[in-house]
């Protein structure tokens, strides 16, 4: 078969909110999907492929009660679905892998247009507990009192032990990312900064070495992305963002298994899967202008630079301390404020690649007076739009020590 080129033609996010009492994840997802179709200039009847990740599906009494994955979607959307993949989820990364999967289906010609939909509304727990998705009823670990932040803390501690990584490195990550969010009017934590490294270190300890400001928030909201053929994209209204390629690697079951650096960084450490993703995309790490990592926890960013081969194993701490993630650094990172400031709906789902698209389109709201016309000062601390980006990396990496996926995107 002849392969077709693929592009992102529409993106949207709803308002990101804390504790949306009474609203369903599906409701956020539908709102985002409508907005993404409008962004693209398409109709719902154009959607052929669907990649949903939704919690809080309403119990309407229709088919598949409690099952948000399958056959109720045509009934709800009022369209047939020709290509369905629910919860595309390698290593808990549901964003980039969905884009790659949809791109493969479009490239091969099974469908012309696909929608990725995210809607989450379960962040607010009762009685001071951590959010429901942060702990699981697994017999081997529930009795220990483990939850997501503690698991990442275990990985962070081991990284410190093996490589001399310091809490200051983690704090540098969070200060940089949160200061982007400080400038982003769409961010949940807009205007809360700016933050110094010391501010991050001084925040209340969650599970040492991770302070509260080194951890992503939890919140509700929706997001959606529409993909189609490059040929069609060029007839639509928004700047065209091409899907160049990427890769996906499942490493181990997050939280069910103890988080070991060996899962990704030990004997089996290899960036081969990443190298191959760059090769099939036809670009190198040097070509990348903006990076959207999954900043569920600051320590995880340090490790992702190593896992993705941007620095050597164990060098992630000094790498981030060099200022590489700043707007005037080599790889501006998490430019919307990331999971720590913009939004984190409990999964490294769609928001990281989605911000990569917005950066490539040069449509980042920030304090620059001319941002709506694409005019930015590119001044660190006052602007968050990367200057003339051509290639962006969107990453969805989930388990505390490895595994996930990434997509490389480029301005047409």
């Amino acid at each position, binding site marked *: 078969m002849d392969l077709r080129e693929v592009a992102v033609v529409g993106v949207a996010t709803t308002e990101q909110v804390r504790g949306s009492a009474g609203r369903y994840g599906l409701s956020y997802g539908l709102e985002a999907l409508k907005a993404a179709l409008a962004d693209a200039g398409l109709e719902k009847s154009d959607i052929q492929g669907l990649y949903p990740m939704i919690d809080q599906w309403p119990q309407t009494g229709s088919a598949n009660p409690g099952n948000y994955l399958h056959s109720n979607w045509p009934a709800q959307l009022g369209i047939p679905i020709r290509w369905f993949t629910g919860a595309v989820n390698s290593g808990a990364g549901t964003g980039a892998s969905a884009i790659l999967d949809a791109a493969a289906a479009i490239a091969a010609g099974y469908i012309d247009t696909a929608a990725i939909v995210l809607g989450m509304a379960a962040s607010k727990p009762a*009685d*001071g*507990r*951590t959010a429901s998705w*942060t*702990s699981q*009823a697994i*017999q*081997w*670990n*529930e*009795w*220990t*009192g*483990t*939850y997501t*932040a*503690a698991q990442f*803390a*275990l*990985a*962070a*501690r*081991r990284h410190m*032990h093996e490589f001399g990584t310091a809490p200051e490195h983690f704090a540098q990550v969070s200060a940089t990312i949160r200061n982007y969010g400080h400038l982003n009017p769409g961010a949940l934590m807009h205007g809360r900064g700016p933050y110094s490294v010391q501010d991050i270190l001084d925040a*209340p*300890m*969650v*599970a*040492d*070495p*991770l302070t*509260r400001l080194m951890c992503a928030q939890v919140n509700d909201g929706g997001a959606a992305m529409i993909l189609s053929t490059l040929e069609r994209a060029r007839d639509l209204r928004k700047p065209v963002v091409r899907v160049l390629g990427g890769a996906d690697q499942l490493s181990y079951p997050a939280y*069910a*298994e*103890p*988080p*070991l650096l060996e899962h990704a960084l030990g004997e089996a450490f290899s960036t081969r899967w990443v190298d191959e993703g760059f090769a099939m995309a036809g670009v190198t790490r040097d070509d990348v202008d903006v990076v959207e990592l999954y900043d569920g926890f600051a320590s995880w960013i340090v490790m992702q630079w190593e896992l993705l081969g941007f620095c050597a194993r164990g060098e992630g701490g000094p790498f981030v301390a060099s200022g590489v993630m700043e707007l005037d650094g080599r790889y501006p990172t998490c430019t919307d404020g990331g999971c720590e400031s913009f939004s984190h709906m409990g999964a490294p789902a769609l928001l990281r690649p989605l911000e990569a698209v917005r950066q490539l389109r040069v449509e980042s709201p920030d304090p620059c007076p001319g941002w709506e016309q694409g005019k930015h000062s590119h001044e660190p601390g006052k602007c968050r739009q990367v200057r003339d980006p051509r290639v962006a990396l969107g990453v969805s990496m989930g388990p505390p020590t490895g595994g996930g996926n990434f997509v490389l995107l480029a301005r047409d």
Partner: protein
Amino acid sequence: MQSSCRVTRSRVCCKALSPLPYELRMASAADPPRQHRPRPVPTEFSEPFWEGTRVGELRVQRCLDCAHWRWTPQLACPKCWSERYEWARSSGRGELYSFTVVRRSVDPDRFEVPYVLAVVRLDEGPHMLTNLVECELADIEVGMRVAVRFERIDDDFHVYPFAPEGG
């Protein structure tokens, strides 16, 4: 009474050492009643492990064909894919691979902070997620020798925190 809550230790230390709302602690006048820690829900597959904890054995799957020890349990050996295995008795000893002192409880009704979440590398090779008990917080170091302590939840369940070896 479980050994993890020694009267010779300070109150703070006792809290740190004993993350578990044990039944006996619940019965003491000093502590308000609180829920049990989550009770494991075994499967037919995992029952031999939990049976081991009741008789003081830490059992880990070992492949009968290639002798590889594996944790968490799997149907087949990840090394050789053999489905023949035994629940072998581990020494219950190992070293601390990593730890974190948890200050924000997953569920304040069930887990009192601070408590210590840990990963232990058993001498037989596998790593286990567990709690570290019977240890001053300031004394915890990655690499320290540790040994399993079985702690009773109820007649059916003991869990398997670790403590400094020889402690």
